[in-house]
């Protein structure tokens, strides 16, 4: 029976983390090298955790399915990273960043976690600058900031439109240093297939060597998953091709509860779909909304070219509906508004796209200023679409982008399975029902650089876990099960390709578990996903061998897990009879069409325990707001 204890320290909000750091047990420096820690994933959270734990003296092993630890999808984050530095003297503070994040998350996150995130945000910027991350600067040589959705202060640090790249390369450089010093051992082209649990404690993992196909066993005193989110359940998302849920899903099936799976973020500014062969969607940084104005025609089915549509026929719907935040309204609100306009037949060419127009900004600031800020984004846009955004407005449409849900963790970022820690997008902890822009990078690095190094020490010093042998029965049976599962998939030899089934799953998810959901649709989705899953196990066609580099098999294994996760997402969405943040149930909205929360009944984290396929038990972690007053989110 799962018992959830968030282990939130008592005391004043602003003293919790400081006191907790003092109260936690430490591992003596000489003893640290006796502890082995396994980190899975080398994005911002994984790389920063591995580097920092290596620096502290632990023996660290890191796995990534990439060919190099520099490739994880954190690298594609464009816009920036938030911090409460208040360098702009515009009224920012740790408390304001905390409050904006809680409010942005529609009051569905833990206060204590979010406050800590805001608190360590400033350390992250200091750390990255010291590593040589080339953030944008002002003429006086000090750091520059820009604004992002959901905030009225400028607190976002950036490196052109490549902030994620620069931060990841910073963490990668720290990790590379630890590899060269021998503190960290790097295993590339390895994909985690399973978590190994012995006597209810996480003891290691099973991974597949993606070059040889060999099933490998890794044991450690603690396992850290930093394996990212699950937006690719939608098939088309802004996530990289290889992003997948397998690591956290397999851990879930081994006992880790999954929190808020239905909280998914649809990003408002992505490039529209071009056709059937589309493999993924490309994000255009939200920072573009600083200077771009979003509009559609006032006339349904308007086929005129955007530059031929006169000012009087344009509806700048975000500025109209949300005058104080305007084009910088939070992501969920902006996405839904775009969908509404297009569903109303007023999208670009009457289709599924809205205009993001820079002509006013170019007239006001000059082309050079716009080029300096967004030059690379404009180039990317032109390369992909063949249109020049300096001359004609960009066309954008919302797309799945980020998953706020993930494995449940306590304040120490440990799951309910002792010894299993979960960082970054893979956990559920800080963004509630909606994440603000430039906060994912902040959370990944906060978890890796400044939280896990303390809390993992406390676990090791308090629980004194032993190191299991990979010859233990638990390892052997897990390895065997996974080997058999791969062979089973290869033996089906049916008619449908992996992508074919994945696309169908994606359509179910997008239509019924996407931006707007309702009871009937969710019930249908649950049935359809279960049926599709059955079809997969009867009719999928996967070629090649298990003992070889086999990308077809890799995709099949990931899809098998998505076909289970999708059902849980729909179930969670069905269960949450309210609208909040990225979870919008059409039955629950205000007269003006805004999300209508139900704080009396749903101010909790839904944490799902896996029993068997199709059967879960939901546990509630109540969200007790001690410091913030719950209010309706208003961006008007």
């Amino acid at each position, binding site marked *: 029976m799962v018992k959830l204890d968030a282990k939130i320290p008592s005391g004043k909000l602003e003293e919790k983390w400081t006191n907790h750091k003092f109260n936690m047990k430490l591992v003596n420096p000489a003893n640290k090298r006796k502890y082995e820690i396994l980190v899975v994933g080398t994005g911002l959270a994984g790389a920063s955790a591995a580097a920092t734990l290596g620096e502290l003296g632990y023996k660290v092993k890191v796995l990534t399915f990439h060919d190099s630890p520099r490739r994880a999808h954190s690298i594609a984050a464009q816009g920036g990273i938030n911090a409460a530095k208040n360098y702009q003297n515009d009224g920012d503070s740790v408390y304001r960043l905390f409050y904006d994040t809680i409010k942005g998350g529609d009051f569905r996150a833990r206060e204590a976690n979010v406050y800590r995130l805001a608190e360590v945000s400033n350390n992250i*910027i200091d750390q990255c600058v010291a590593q040589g991350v080339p953030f944008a600067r002002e003429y006086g040589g000090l750091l520059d900031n820009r604004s992002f959705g959901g905030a009225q202060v400028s607190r976002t640090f950036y*490196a052109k439109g490549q902030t994620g790249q620069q931060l990841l390369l910073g963490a990668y450089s*720290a990790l590379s240093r630890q590899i*060269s010093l021998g503190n960290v051992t790097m295993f590339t082209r390895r994909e985690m297939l399973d978590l190994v649990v012995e006597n209810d404690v996480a003891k290691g993992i099973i991974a597949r060597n993606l070059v040889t196909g060999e099933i490998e066993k890794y044991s450690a005193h603690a396992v850290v998953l930093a394996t990212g989110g699950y937006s690719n359940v939608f098939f088309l998302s802004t996530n990289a091709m290889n992003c997948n849920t397998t690591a956290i899903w397999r851990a879930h099936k081994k006992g880790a509860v999954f929190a808020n799976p239905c909280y998914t973020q649809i990003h408002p500014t992505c490039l529209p779909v071009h056709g059937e062969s589309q493999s993924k969607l490309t994000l255009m940084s939200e920072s573009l909304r600083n200077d771009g104005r979003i509009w559609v025609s006032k006339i349904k089915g308007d086929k005129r070219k955007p530059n031929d549509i006169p000012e009087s026929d344009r509806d700048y719907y975000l500025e109209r509906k949300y005058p104080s935040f305007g084009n910088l309204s939070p992501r969920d609100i902006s996405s839904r508004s775009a969908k509404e306009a297009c569903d109303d037949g007023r999208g670009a060419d009457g289709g599924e796209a809205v205009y993001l127009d820079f002509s006013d900004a170019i007239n006001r600031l000059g082309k050079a200023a716009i080029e300096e800020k967004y030059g690379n984004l404009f*180039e990317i846009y032109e*390369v992909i679409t063949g249109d020049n955004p300096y001359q004609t407005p960009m066309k954008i449409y919302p797309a799945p982008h980020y998953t706020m849900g993930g494995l449940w963790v306590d304040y120490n970022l440990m799951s309910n399975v002792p010894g299993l820690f979960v960082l970054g997008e893979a956990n559920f902890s800080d963004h509630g029902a909606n994440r603000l822009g430039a906060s994912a990078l902040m959370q990944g690095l906060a978890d890796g650089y400044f939280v896990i190094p303390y809390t993992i020490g406390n676990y090791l010093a308090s629980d004194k876990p032993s190191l299991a042998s990979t010859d233990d029965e638990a390892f052997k049976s897990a390895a065997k099960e996974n080997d058999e599962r791969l062979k089973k998939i290869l033996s089906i030899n049916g008619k449908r390709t992996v992508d074919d089934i994945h696309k169908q799953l994606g359509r179910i998810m997008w239509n019924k578990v996407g931006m707007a959901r309702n009871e009937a649709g969710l019930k249908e989705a649950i049935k359809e996903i279960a049926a599709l899953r059955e079809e997969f196990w009867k009719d999928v066609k996967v070629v090649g061998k298990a003992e070889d580099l086999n*990308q077809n098999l890799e995709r099949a294994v990931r899809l098998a897990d998505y076909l289970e996760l999708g059902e849980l997402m729909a179930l969670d969405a069905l269960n949450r009879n309210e609208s909040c943040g990225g979870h919008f149930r059409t039955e629950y909205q205000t007269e003006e069409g805004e999300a209508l929360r139900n704080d009396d009944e749903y101010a909790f984290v839904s944490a799902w325990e896996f029993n068997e396929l199709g059967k879960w038990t939901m546990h509630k972690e109540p969200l007790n707001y001690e410091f913030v007053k719950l209010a309706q989110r208003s961006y008007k």
Partner: protein
Amino acid sequence: MSEIKLNLTLKVWRQQGPKSPGSFVSYKVSVSPDASFLEMLDELNNSLEQEGKEPIAFESDCREGICGTCDLMINGEAHGPLPRIATCQLHMRNFKDGETIYVEPFRAKAFPLVKDLIVDRSALDKIIQAGGYVSINTGGVPDANAIPIPKDKAAEAFDAAACIGCGACVATCKNASAMLFVSAKVSQLALLPQGHPERAKRVEAMVKVMDELGFGSCTNTYACEAECPKGISITNIARLNREFYKAKFSH
């Protein structure tokens, strides 16, 4: 969305493993001009899988030109015919109906072949491990605004730091030299005050490992700059040489 399809012949390098012989295999494809090059390969792979044939092994991830995973030689050019993009950003509208396209892996002594179009570029990681960092631990660093850095220096450092580690510079160089890659990291950290304490040690260590790993020498053909998806300038190579000789003379 375009209704017209391009009919193309692909000649793709297929090789089961590093020790097996490889050869070009022909495929006929019909593809929308709006599709990307990699989406065309996805479609081809999907149809191969349907026929029970092994799909073409190739690597890609972000498909936004930033992760550096994709790495194809297309008609003899790293990342294909357009300047300043990665393979994943190449779209089919840049090809003509009826064309024959050759697709090969990035070839270099330091990049051993893994399978089909996949090569092992971990040598680039080893060069970074030799010194492509500032030796600081997490915590205990000064305030981010403690050291002002002139805007132009920061921008120049950024331009060098924009390298995505794809290896196009190596694959395109007739000597398979990694000088552009190495110079980008050396420059970034030489331009910023944070990198100065280890400036001399860094450049020597990185160059030493680069030489050991089987990368060739730079003979100033500038092919690397022409093919670099991020437009990393060869002025960085000049800076690398200056840094290297300064370091040598400092002993």
